């Protein structure tokens, strides 16, 4: 493989891995605080794409306004799900919350079929959903790479930096870190724990919306099950990186994205098994380091 060819695969891998990372963070933050695997997260991702789609097609917003609108709408959807589906079960056995999460996932998928229709909607620039110039090719050393790939990488990096800043440099981020270790003691600091949990869901869902829009620009369509495979892979990324760890989710996302692209690039005959690599990596990590790459032993809460 030529160096230029390798570079092409590398930027592809980074953009895909970055999207996995954005989604994985939502899983890992919720798990870090509530010890709940939010199975509806992949569907929240799908709704992010739908919100952006309808904002442009139905409400005729300029594409960038629509994207920002979608991020906030999805953030509120995430917080709303937590409020009505998970909060009432805060003191219930954890298995009840888990089953509820699966229920919410089914509900969102089927509601999307009813509300938006089961047929895929086209998410391509001809419909005005984003500028056609995003698909212009940049020529780098003989390989042509679409501008969109670089935009994706740029937005992912900006979102990750913003997230790290929120978690480590703001007051609400401090409360998120505190609450992930000890909910009752955080309440004893006069913190409204429910509000911190809501904020966490908003943050995770907003990132999922960003990931969703980037995903839909890359694979230009949306249907009610769009989020299933990327949601599952992002969940695997979160586990591979060490669930509960934000940095772990980032590392896991990039590992998954890079290996998926590179294995297909180097051994094209394996292209049909693309989705299986994620599981192979998962099995390997679980065997070698069950807590994930950056994970630490999580003591059960009493």
């Amino acid at each position, binding site marked *: 493989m030529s160096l230029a060819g390798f570079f092409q695969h590398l930027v592809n891998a980074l953009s895909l891995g970055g999207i996995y990372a954005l989604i994985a963070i939502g899983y890992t933050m919720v798990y870090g605080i509530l010890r709940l695997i939010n199975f509806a997260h992949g569907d929240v991702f799908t709704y992010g794409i739908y919100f952006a789609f309808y904002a442009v097609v139905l409400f005729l917003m300029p594409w960038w306004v629509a994207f920002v609108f979608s991020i906030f709408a999805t953030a509120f959807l995430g917080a709303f799900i937590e409020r009505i589906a998970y909060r009432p079960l805060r003191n219930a056995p954890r298995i009840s919350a888990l089953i509820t999460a699966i229920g919410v996932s089914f509900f969102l998928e089927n509601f999307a079929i009813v509300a938006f229709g089961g047929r895929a909607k086209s998410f391509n620039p001809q419909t005005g959903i984003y500028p056609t110039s995003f698909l212009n090719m940049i020529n780098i050393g003989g390989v042509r790479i679409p501008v969109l790939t670089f935009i994706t990488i740029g937005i992912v990096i900006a979102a990750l930096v913003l997230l790290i800043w929120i978690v480590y440099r703001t*007051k609400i981020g*401090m*409360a998120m*870190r*505190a609450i*992930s*270790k*000890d909910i*009752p*003691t*955080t*309440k*004893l*600091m*006069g*913190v*409204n*724990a429910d509000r911190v949990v809501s904020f966490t869901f908003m943050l995770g869902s907003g990132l999922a919306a960003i990931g969703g829009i980037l995903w839909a620009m890359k694979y230009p369509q949306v249907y009610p099950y769009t989020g299933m495979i990327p949601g599952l892979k992002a969940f695997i990324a979160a586990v591979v990186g060490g669930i509960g760890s934000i940095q772990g989710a980032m590392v896991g996302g990039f590992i998954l994205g890079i290996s998926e692209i590179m294995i297909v690039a180097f051994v094209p005959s394996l292209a049909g098994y693309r989705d299986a690599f994620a599981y192979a990596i998962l099995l390997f990590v679980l065997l070698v380091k069950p807590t994930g790459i950056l994970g630490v032993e999580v003591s059960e809460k009493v």
Partner: protein
Amino acid sequence: MNTQTMLKIEDLHVHYGSIHALKGISIEVETGQIVTLIGANGAGKTTTLQAITNLVRKSGGKVLFNGTDITHMATHHIINNGIALVPEGRRIFPNLTVHENLMMGAYARKDVEGIKKDLDWVLTLFPRLRERLKQLGGTLSGGEQQMLAVARGLMTRPKLLMLDEPSLGLAPLLVREVFQIIQKIREEGVTILLIEQNALAALKIADYGYVLETGRIVMQDTGQNLLKSDDVRKAYLGVAIT
């Protein structure tokens, strides 16, 4: 000086499933005093504090704080009304720095100047914390963690500071230091409700004390009188009565 009741607990009941952990206890804490609640393991001391702050559900009774009914108030509202609980086992945030731990205590406060002043005050009370501000809470020694827990509680600027076994697991020298600091805090005008297994040390500094046995108050008197009481001496101070 006319004393005034700050905290009034009436007929408090708590059930854990079928276990009746608190069987109707009544406690009063006067403003400016140190009141202690002593008793053996499992008597219900920690449960009492958790019930006051609504970390466990009360099955009956009433809690008044400066005349306000806080029986069913959410935990964070109770704290922001002026009650702080320094929980058993310190429960500092190991993944936050010492400075962040202290700022968690001031989380709901908006008075930037007051926070600065209080931070300075607690760092004067516990000078060792000042050297460790940038360190993660989890890297502190047991004694330092206890000091951080108390300092963090003070950062909420409480009118009433409730301490759950502050001497637990500390070396004798440190225990003495902790009790000296408790008295210092009271001198600053903070009322204190102290829970202790170390009955001797607690009663020595307490104005008033309650003895809790399997969910019931079995005795109450001034600290001095309880120290002299034969029953207390036998049961809690390990003194042979001849």
